[in-house]
């Protein structure tokens, strides 16, 4: 754990902190249908054109059920479009490598995967997808699923902020404004930076190179419209790699600087959303308290993962490998153990899932951190929107528990938390837990589940547990040795993505509707303070207790036992 790592980590947190307020203020304008920005001269007419063609009245608002229905209908249409495009890929243009049609179960899995902001990849990008599939069938969801996630968070925040309101906003207005004023401008600027670092953006067929050592050996080098896709993949916490190796690929993450800014891009919008929360509920310190709780969990994860990866694998050291700089299996020289551990933590704190190192080859405790991050609900900054609404569910539970402890009716920002609110919050949390554990149990006790393993022993169990955690949490990273491109896995993983996304969003929107209806009562001396250290400690405690109670037994069978086997035995698998 060298000084460069510490400086970079501090710099990362400081920059994130500095960007939180500007991003939050920008979100505040974008998510206000009347909000004015300097982009209005360009995009206002486009925005109006969108509404006219869509038949949407931007002045009207929706109750939570209508809002949810719009989101579900929109997701269904996008998912079907992607399925169709993938199945017909071989007949469509922009396919210089003559990629064949994507098989039905893989197209099913992939369409769901991108629609749900998961970007789980049962395929290798550069060996499966045409340029059209990459930039249309897949990249459209990098935008739309990100906007949908932010929209849900905005609806929930409005619900909390409003008093005696029937509505929580208009999904279509949120959707269009988030694209035009937030995602597109950011992605455009970011993709230009990425190209400057060496990322490709072209429509050429793959390059044929005669290699230096032996000119008879031909190296076919991937090409295509990568920068435009990668920019939004990071900003929208999608994480689906253009290539199989994702952000470890030298084109997809050419320099340490591109790596640093890609990591910052993951947390940029989620962090800004905490400020948006504070501003909307007129309690800025509450927003910062939520930010603080997230940062505590973030730093804890980074330090454990970094420490484990630097400590390395004693079995390799026994085989004659230098112990410094640490575990290099599945890592790139330009990043090394620290930047790989930092990236792994960030990508799983958020529901991004891009990887710049192979999590499957991490040390047991190094790999435990990303897995646990996902299982805690990805509420540490989290996916764009998904992180905040997930965290707010935990906030409601925390306030409820605190109320139980002191024997008062729980109250959150002047709203009474009632039985209905707790029910929908618990449903949301339980869906994730059941989804992960039941599918994992099914897979490890089935032939189809064990058939895909790349590793045996506890690590094999981890591969399966990670897969269903990742898909349920809409993360998309993997212990990628698992061969998931089978009809059974594609179907079960696809279902777990649907459940994890929409069976979480619907209760969250129900919570938004319920909160909006409530009357705002002024805070009194008896109200539970939601901006001090006590609140942060209780919130972090609630997240850890729910996560630990749910997943400790499963984690014990995977990374934890593997850690002790590595340290205390000579067993290999």
């Amino acid at each position: 754990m060298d000084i460069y790592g510490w400086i970079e980590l501090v710099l990362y947190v400081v920059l994130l902190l500095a960007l939180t307020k500007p991003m939050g203020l920008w979100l505040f304008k974008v998510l206000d249908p009347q909000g004015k920005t300097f982009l209005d001269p360009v995009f206002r007419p486009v925005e109006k054109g969108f509404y006219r063609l869509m038949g949407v009245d931007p002045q009207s608002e929706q109750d939570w059920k209508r809002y949810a229905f719009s989101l579900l209908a929109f997701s269904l249409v996008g998912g079907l479009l992607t399925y169709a495009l993938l199945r017909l890929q071989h007949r469509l243009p922009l396919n210089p490598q003559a990629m064949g049609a994507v098989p039905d179960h893989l197209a099913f899995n992939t369409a769901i995967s991108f629609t749900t902001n998961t970007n789980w990849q049962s395929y290798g990008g550069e060996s499966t997808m045409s340029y059209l599939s990459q930039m249309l069938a897949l990249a459209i969801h990098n935008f739309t699923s990100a906007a949908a996630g932010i929209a849900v968070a905005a609806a929930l925040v409005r619900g909390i902020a409003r008093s005696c309101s029937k509505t929580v906003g208009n999904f279509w207005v949120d959707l269009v404004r988030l694209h035009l004023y937030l995602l597109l401008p950011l992605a455009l600027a970011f993709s230009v930076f990425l190209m400057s670092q060496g990322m490709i953006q072209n429509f050429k067929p793959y390059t044929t190179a005669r290699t230096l050592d032996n000119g008879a050996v031909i190296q076919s080098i991937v090409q295509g419209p990568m920068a435009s896709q990668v920019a939004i993949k990071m900003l929208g916490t999608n994480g689906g790699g253009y290539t199989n190796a994702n952000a470890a690929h030298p084109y997809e993450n050419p320099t340490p600087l591109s790596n640093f800014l890609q990591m910052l891009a993951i947390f940029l919008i989620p962090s800004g959303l905490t400020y948006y929360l504070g501003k909307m509920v007129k309690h800025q310190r509450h927003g910062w308290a939520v930010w603080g709780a997230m940062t505590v969990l973030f730093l804890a994860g980074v330090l454990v993962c970094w420490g484990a990866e630097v400590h390395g694998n004693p079995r390799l050291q026994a085989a004659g490998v230098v112990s410094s700089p640490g575990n290099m299996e599945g890592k790139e020289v330009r990043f090394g153990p620290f930047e790989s551990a930092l990236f792994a933590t960030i990508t799983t704190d958020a529901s991004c899932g891009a990887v710049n190192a192979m999590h499957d080859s991490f040390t047991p405790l190094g790999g435990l951190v990303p897995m646990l991050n996902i299982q805690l609900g990805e509420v540490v900054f989290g996916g764009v929107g998904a992180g905040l609404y997930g965290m707010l569910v935990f906030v409601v539970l925390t306030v409820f528990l605190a109320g139980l402890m002191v024997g008062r009716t729980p109250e959150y920002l002047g709203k009474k938390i009632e039985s209905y609110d707790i029910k929908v919050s618990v449903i949301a949390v339980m869906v994730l837990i059941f989804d992960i554990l039941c599918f994992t149990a099914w897979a490890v006790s089935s032939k189809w589940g064990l058939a895909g393993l790349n590793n045996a022993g506890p690590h094999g169990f981890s591969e399966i547990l990670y897969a269903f955690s990742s898909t349920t949490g809409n993360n998309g990273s993997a212990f990628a040795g698992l061969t998931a491109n089978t009809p059974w896995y594609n179907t079960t993983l696809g279902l777990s993505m649907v459940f994890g996304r929409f069976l979480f969003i619907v209760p969250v929107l129900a919570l938004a509707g319920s909160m909006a209806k409530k009357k705002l009562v002024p805070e009194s001396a008896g109200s539970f303070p939601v901006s001090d250290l006590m609140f942060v400690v209780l919130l972090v405690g609630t997240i850890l207790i729910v996560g630990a109670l749910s997943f400790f037994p499963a984690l014990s069978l995977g990374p934890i036992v593997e850690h002790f086997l590595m340290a205390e035995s000579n067993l290999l698998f």
Partner: protein
Amino acid sequence: MNRLFSEFRASIVSTLLLAIVCCGAYPLAVYGIGRVFPAQADGSLLREGGHVIGSALIGQSFSGAGYFHSRPSAAGQGYDAANSSGTNLGPLSKKLIDDVTGRVADYRKENGLDNATPVPADAVTSSASGLDPHISPENARYQLRRVAAARGLTQGAVQAKIDANTEGRQFGLFGQPRVNVLLLNLELDGKR
């Protein structure tokens, strides 16, 4: 029924419009801007006598004694730049330990190291992408004697070329010090 229709109309129309903007205009705009730095946007390709011999960003496989050797690769049959991949072997994988043990022995033999010398980690482990263009400076230093002997050069001359192709931390902070193997070997061949 009317409501249902209006929701799906909005869904379909917005999907089409967003596709035009986000999947048509946007990537084309990025492509257009990319023409300002075509070398990067086209893949940082290296040419020699009219044909492409590789990319400055993508590693290649080297086996000749006179070349510096890249890291082990799990991309296809090795450095397949249309099939990036790591091994995804876990820390207690028997295959991983066997593979690394074999590579350690080979590395020591090739480079004239005794059996007590620990080997640089990057020299015997596979990268995440299978296309890692870099090795660590320590790894290059261990290979120096072999390359110099095979080419009949002094070690000082080869060391100078290693130094010239060593990248430090970006802005003195980001990333790890590293040597670009393809660029170094090109320079040894007098092709740069």
